């Protein structure tokens, strides 16, 4: 039988997930609004007289924490509806390599949640009065860091998707795993405001991206098999 190749399955699933995300525009916008809102709340939590002094110092951490939280908010969507309507089971039963299918879903998730965060980065920087010189570093850290958030998040969602109240547990499972990303990224941005070299933390972010690109989908597939089982 002439079967389409594995990469055909990858792109078909990738396109399907993108299409679904675009059809559900509200769900797409929620994490992004949340991202901006968290940043605004942090700024409002500080006395206005201190803004000039404190905001630039806090900006890297606050922007990255907001990115972590908004990613956490969108993670459930990666597998939840597919789990509920049974398409996840069909994907795992399909003859195609499940690793590729998981990668397709993670890539689609990053494209609809991670990439918009990068586009919003200049806005968030302006809200937190981040110095313009550090903007480039912020975008670089987001480019390298947000895919890690999607890859590691996929492990957490796949472990909890079969549970009735997995959402609350998800943050406990995932946020500790996000800490290295936060540390390297936030310190890189902070260092760049001081004019220090940021090559090392960026390299570390890249190394983490490669590590989780290799190991994340393996754990995700195994966890999905447990949840669907």
């Amino acid at each position: 039988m002439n079967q389409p190749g594995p990469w055909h399955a990858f792109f078909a699933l990738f396109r399907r997930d993108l299409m679904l995300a675009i059809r559900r525009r509200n769900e797409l916008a929620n994490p992004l609004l949340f991202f901006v809102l968290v940043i605004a709340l942090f700024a409002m939590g500080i006395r206005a007289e201190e803004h000039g002094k404190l905001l630039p110092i806090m900006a890297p951490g606050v922007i990255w924490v907001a990115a972590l939280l908004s990613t956490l908010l969108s993670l459930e969507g990666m597998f939840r509806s597919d789990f509920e309507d049974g398409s996840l089971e069909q994907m795992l039963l399909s003859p195609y390599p499940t690793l590729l299918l998981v990668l397709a879903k993670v890539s689609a998730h990053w494209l609809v949640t991670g990439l918009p965060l990068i586009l919003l980065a200049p806005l968030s920087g302006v809200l937190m009065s981040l110095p313009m010189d550090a903007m480039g570093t912020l975008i670089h850290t987001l480019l390298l860091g947000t895919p890690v958030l999607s890859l590691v998040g996929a492990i957490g969602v796949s472990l909890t998707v079969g549970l009735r109240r997995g959402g609350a547990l998800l943050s406990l499972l995932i946020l500790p795993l996000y800490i290295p990303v936060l540390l390297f990224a936030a310190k890189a941005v902070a260092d760049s405001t001081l004019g220090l070299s940021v090559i090392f933390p960026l390299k570390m972010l890249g190394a983490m991206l490669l590590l989780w690109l290799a190991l994340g989908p393996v754990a995700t597939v195994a966890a999905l098999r447990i949840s669907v089982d």
Partner: protein
Amino acid sequence: MVQFSLPRVVNDYNMIILGHSGSPPLLVFIIQMHYLQKLSSPPHFYRLAGTLAPWFGWASLALLLAGLYGGLVAAPSDYQQGDAFRIIYIHVPAAMMSLFVYTFMAAAGVMGLVWRFRLADAILAGSAPIGASFTLLALVTGAIWGKPMWGTWWVWDARLTSELILLFLYLGVIGLLAAYDDKRKGGRAAAWLTIVGVINVPIVKFSVDWWNTLHQGSTLFRAEPAIHGSMRVPLVMMIVGFACFFVAIMLWRARCELLDRERHSEWVEILFRGQRR
């Protein structure tokens, strides 16, 4: 296309162990695996753990009492820290065990996933709360020591931060185990989470070290120990005592977990019907 298939690996092992495989496997390997298989069979482990646990329990009691006497009474005061240093007799063993137990759980998780030892799930589930308690103990004693020494209960130092993250990892495993109604599925999920966590621990350690460090280095594990014998001996006794304590409690807890998991199996029925008569 490479497809990741754990069941296939497991199946291969099972064929070798149970002898259903067509090709004759190596004799030595059979004997080793046979022993592991026997050790990992729940009734056998249940009996063995019941025998071993009291030994470890009494050994830990003796070591802890001797170590506490040596550390709190016999050892001289530190010339810089006075008597405040004595908290290391609790703090250091607890911190060491907190890391050891997590690694141990990850090893149990790997064994459970690869060889499908039902026992490994019970051991992992039994160890997690003990490890979390050690971590909490290390954090609390560290804070109590930090107040007079550093002038603050808490600083975002590298070691403190990674210990706190370790506590969150433990709580995640415990939460995941509790969230699954099906204990076997929960055990497998927790095993995967522990393995992912153990990959993450060195990264956390490294990132946090790079981020900020204040904690003193190790005084114990050097070619020339930077701690005098009268202080070191009780410390080593405390560490071994903590390890024995962990083994004893872990065996007891794993026994309870096994009974709970296997409550419908034949050996549990026989065990309890036999005892009632």
